[in-house]
């Protein structure tokens, strides 16, 4: 039997003396699509960082492909895990064009002193094509819209050739059109490259339409994990966000109203 891709066991995370996450247990298998939802301050981004060691856990353990993720092993494991942050991580003043920013995804595999060659440049060109940004390859990154910036970040993640994609609120602060473009791109990329995806989002409707598995985090604790069909539950979601939530049917889709 194939081992899980990533596993978090009994992880507890402290920031100074404050406990951020408590007794987290999660298993992600190859190709699975997970979403993590929960109110602001629940510790979602912190939990995401457990997978690649950006968040060190005080107790418990994290493994990736059976190997423990520790401060010592994390730099060697990280090239396999692409982490996409919100578009605000990209500084618009940087003197860099879209192609250069995307090519940077290959650098951790090339290693120190190595130079990107034809293979890496082809990889970046293909990644730009996959996210529909080929025409903007030469554009300075400061001149991208929010949605384009986020798709560029996805292309950068693809050039890393990851097995596991961590997405930290990739649609935050985007308008409806950009949000739909980014979510469609994520869905297409996941299918095309057979990636495992762990998506942190506040967009419940994206969760219902895209994810297979849902984890719910509240106050640093995982309060529920399971298949998306069971997660579409007004009582459960109402408890998670502490507001009444109604689920409405819209054709074949279910949407959350609050």
């Amino acid at each position, binding site marked *: 039997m194939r081992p899980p891709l990533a596993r978090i066991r009994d992880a507890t995370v402290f920031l100074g003396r404050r406990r951020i996450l408590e007794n987290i247990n999660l298993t992600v298998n190859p190709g699975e699509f997970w979403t993590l939802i929960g109110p602001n301050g629940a510790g979602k981004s912190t939990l995401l960082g457990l997978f690649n060691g950006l968040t060190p856990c005080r107790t418990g353990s994290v493994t990736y492909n059976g190997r423990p993720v520790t401060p010592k092993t994390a730099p060697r494991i990280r090239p396999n895990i692409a982490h996409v942050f919100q578009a605000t991580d990209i500084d618009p003043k*940087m003197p860099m064009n879209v192609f250069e920013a995307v090519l940077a995804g290959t650098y951790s595999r090339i290693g120190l002193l190595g130079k990107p060659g034809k293979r890496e440049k082809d990889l970046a060109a293909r990644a730009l094509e996959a996210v529909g940004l080929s025409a903007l390859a030469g554009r300075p990154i400061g001149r991208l819209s929010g949605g384009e910036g986020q798709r560029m970040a996805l292309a950068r993640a693809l050039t890393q050739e990851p097995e596991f994609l*961590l997405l930290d609120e990739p649609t935050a602060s985007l308008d409806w059109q950009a949000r739909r473009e980014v979510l469609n791109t994520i869905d297409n990329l996941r299918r095309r490259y057979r990636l495992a995806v762990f998506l942190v989002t506040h967009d419940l409707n994206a969760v219902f339409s895209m994810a297979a598995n849902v984890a719910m985090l509240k106050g640093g604790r995982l309060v529920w994990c399971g298949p998306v069909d069971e997660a579409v539950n007004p009582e459960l979601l109402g408890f998670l966000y502490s507001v009444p939530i109604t689920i409405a049917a819209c054709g074949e889709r279910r949407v959350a109203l609050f």
Partner: protein
Amino acid sequence: MESFLSYEFLRRALLMSVLGGSVCGAMGVFVVLWRMSLVGMCISHAAFAGALTGLWLGFPPLAGALTASLGAAALVGPLADRPGFSLDTAIGVIFSLVMSLAMLALGLLPGARTEGLSLIWGNLLIVTSSELWLMGGVALLLFLFVFCFFKEIQAIIGQSRAALASGMPVRAVRYACFILMGLVVACTLKAIGGLLIFSLIVAPAAAALQLTYSLRMMFLLSAALGATASVAGLWLSFRLSLPTGAAIVLIATLMLAAAMVFSPKKKTSASSPPGQGTS
């Protein structure tokens, strides 16, 4: 020009201008893009305090400047990485400490304090051959660092969190920059002066950023502008009997003003700028 170059001390000053100006310019790219202006100010004042302490205790000011600036550079990074500490706080703590030490050393210096005060404004005309060699070594080190680790610098400067998450040695590169900054500041302190050196680091890089969308070009432009400002400042100070450091900084600032006026970035069209390839 012939009369200018006929003096040994002016030839040394000219060489120091080219080396120091280009090194400060290139270092400024990190300072401007990483928004570490305060780090640079903190390290330059630490060098100043170290040099004054050296004068007070009777050892070479350059050794004091090197020790103090490298010490401050080595402290800033780890202190800023501590939980509950930000870079601003770390700099605030170190800056006030080094300024107190500088004032203490200046106050305790015996005699006329001329040499101590000259460290504030700098003097290119009293540069020695050994200081030139040292500056050459630092220039080689900095340019080799940029050449060898350009892709890491580019990735980290542009998208630092993504670079860290992909396994790149972000912290090592950042600390290396702090250390290089300490070396650059210590070696140019006597020539440019503790108060002025920081402007020579920031102004050429800020001007270069106005003129290009390419990081590679920004390093080249910034180094060239720094060297030009230094040489032009030296020439003006020779012709018009002006304080050298002040003349250099004024020219660097004028260059920045001109770059802001003629910056192609003022045009906010969404099209790609000409000449930006995809390499």
